[in-house]
């Protein structure tokens, strides 16, 4: 075990897979010599050479499109889109090509690619450095969408994603890169070295896809969340005194339905929390699933806390970001019903 930030854990995952599998290739904008604008690929080019880890032109469609071609050849590319907010030029390649290739060719060709992208807000990133576009991917059949909330999961999930033969959208909450964040922006950052989930095995291990985890066990109600919001939910539970069972989905879609259903059937109440905008966000799918599978066990309407249906603002960061106060209010509402 070693103490790692999420950045170091992600880098370690790529290091492990570059070492284990000659077909793993890492590239993207500023990913090679410089080691990435977030340092996630630092040192990898020096260690594995320019034909394994390299810089790419500023062209997201090209990065993903070329990776699909490499996947068809038999490589296992791990590509980076610098910010999730900039994935849209690659959307055609992701939706029309990567996601459909196995199906439309009846398995003749496949796209075993991983597309990493830093996502989420809470960093004064404004409109194009804060978005959470996961619902644009969970809606696409053929894709896997994954989001870790801590270094240990980040490494295990990334290794599992790289090894997976389906195309994986790997969303990294950049607010969590250096330490956990519970929404209390006025308090000093706690580094991962001070958190048990910053203890990460050094070698190879995986966290299986389609497996959620009970992040905090509880009996009063179930909170379903992922990414940064897991820590916000934890703070809200602590501050309200409500004994919430917090589920960290980890794999957004396909997901681990059993863990959700078992928890909600136990507690009878459910609140869903994400940073992304509310309308047609992934929370709507989660709400529908819980309603379908747990209807007779529900004692209150399913609550939903999300970003407002607005573009992500700059100055109004903390009015937008669903912090512990807003999540706490939702928990109280769910308990009052």
């Amino acid at each position, binding site marked *: 075990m070693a103490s790692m930030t999420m950045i170091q854990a992600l880098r370690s995952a790529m290091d492990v897979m570059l070492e284990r599998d000659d077909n793993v290739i890492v590239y993207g904008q500023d990913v090679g010599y410089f080691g990435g604008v977030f340092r996630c690929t630092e040192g990898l080019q020096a260690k594995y050479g320019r034909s394994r880890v390299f810089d790419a*032109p500023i*062209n997201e*469609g090209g990065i993903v499109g070329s990776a699909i071609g490499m996947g068809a050849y038999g490589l296992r590319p791990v590509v980076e889109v610098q910010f999730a907010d900039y994935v849209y030029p690659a959307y055609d390649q992701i939706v*029309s090509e990567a996601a459909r290739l196995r199906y*439309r060719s*009846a398995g003749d060709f496949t796209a075993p690619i991983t597309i990493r992208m830093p996502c989420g807000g809470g960093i004064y990133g404004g409109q194009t450095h804060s978005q959470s576009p996961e619902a644009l991917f969970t809606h696409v059949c053929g894709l896997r969408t994954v989001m870790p909330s801590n270094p240990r999961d980040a490494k295990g999930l990334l290794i599992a994603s790289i090894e997976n033969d389906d195309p994986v959208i790997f969303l990294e909450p950049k607010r969590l890169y250096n330490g956990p964040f519970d929404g209390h922006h006025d308090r000093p950052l706690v580094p991962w070295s001070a958190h048990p989930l910053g203890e990460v095995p050094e070698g190879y291990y995986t966290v299986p896809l389609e497996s959620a985890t009970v992040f905090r066990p509880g009996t009063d109600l179930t909170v379903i969340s992922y990414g940064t919001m897991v820590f916000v939910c934890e703070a809200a539970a602590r501050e309200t005194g409500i004994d919430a069972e917090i589920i960290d989905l980890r794999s957004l879609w396909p997901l681990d339905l059993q863990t959700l259903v078992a928890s909600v059937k136990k507690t009878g109440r459910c609140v869903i929390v994400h940073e992304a905008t509310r309308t047609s966000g992934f929370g709507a799918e989660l709400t529908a699933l819980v309603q379908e599978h747990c209807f007779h066990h529900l004692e209150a309407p399913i609550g939903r806390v999300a970003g407002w249906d607005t573009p992500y603002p700059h100055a109004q960061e903390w009015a937008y970001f669903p912090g512990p106060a807003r999540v706490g209010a939702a928990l109280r509402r769910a308990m009052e019903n």
Partner: protein
Amino acid sequence: MSQGTSLRLHVPEPTGRPGHETDFSYLHLSRAGEVRKPPVDASPADTSDLAYTLVRVLDDDGRAVGPWAPPADPDLLRRGLRAMMKTRAFDARMLIAQRQKKISFYMQCLGEEAIATGHALVLQQGDMCFPTYRQQGLLLARDDVTLLELTCELMSNERDPLKGRQLPVCYSMKRAGFFSISGNLATQFIQAVGWGMASAIKGDTRIASGWIGDGATAESDFHTALTFAHVYRAPVILNVVNNQWAISTFQAIAGGEATTFAARGVGCGIASLRVDGNDFLAVLAASRWAAERARSNLGPTLIEWVTYRAGAHSTSDDPSRYRPADDWAHFPLGDPIARLAQHLTAIGAWSQQEHAQTQADMQAQVNTAVKEAERFGSMADGHVAGDAALFEDVYKDMPEHLKRQREQLASEG
């Protein structure tokens, strides 16, 4: 000062519309044999004249002339002619099958047969083409692809290798170096570059060949592919098939007015050729030149194939509504089959009798394939690929939600 002059929007128009003959002088043709052949290691900048002229080998009398004339190989040319005739016979029969409702949709490549069949004869086993929906010649030129399996895909029947999931014509055949066709235009052009990059990363000897039409060059993935191919010196041939039309839209609307598509390649630092796409010998020579460049680590080549879309865009299209009905008859580069047959006849390697016999043979082969395929069902008899395969291959392993949906379909219909 031009103060007070009103600006005007320029919207290109073809010279020919229904009832008005096309003026093909915009093509800027060269005479056969006129254009130089540079060494295979020519720098991209040194191909700029080739991007504005036209590589041609066969002259009006069917003689092979000039520096691009490939070494005489009558057997290969005869094979090429047969492949073109097979492609045309297949297309003609499938148009009828579509009208008979045995298949739901079809796209022919009438007039463009030389490009894909000639190119296929130059590539080696293991190379990978990333075709559009109009390169069926890449498959029909091969002996290891049966007419039956193609027909079954078109009929979406129980023998359809794609299990009824894809529209007709959207073939996928890895073993034949033919990448899965997508309905989304231009996407495969950058994928071809990525495949070539992968081959280079692994120190392989195989090359990629990407395909795109004139209209689709306006898509952003065209630009993307050129940039990546140039940056990484990818072993790839970037083929632009300029058949003058994108459905109803003349190539000038795609950006072809007063320039060429080959010129885009030079602008991106890629060696580029503009070639008579109806001249089978020029197709062989240019494809060989580009393949040798790629295999020698000299980088990508862009080839603009100048041809004419002689048929309708698809079975859902009626070209008489936007262009002259007799346009192909006036197209100055003629018919690739007639031109190669003329050449082979002139060198004593073909005859009218052999031509007629080959045509009859090809038609018989295609008719047999249709009959055989129909035994496994067609859209007309409703005996198509079963529902069992609907949920498979979305992912490698079927997730729980798809298993539930499959059960639901089975129980509720």
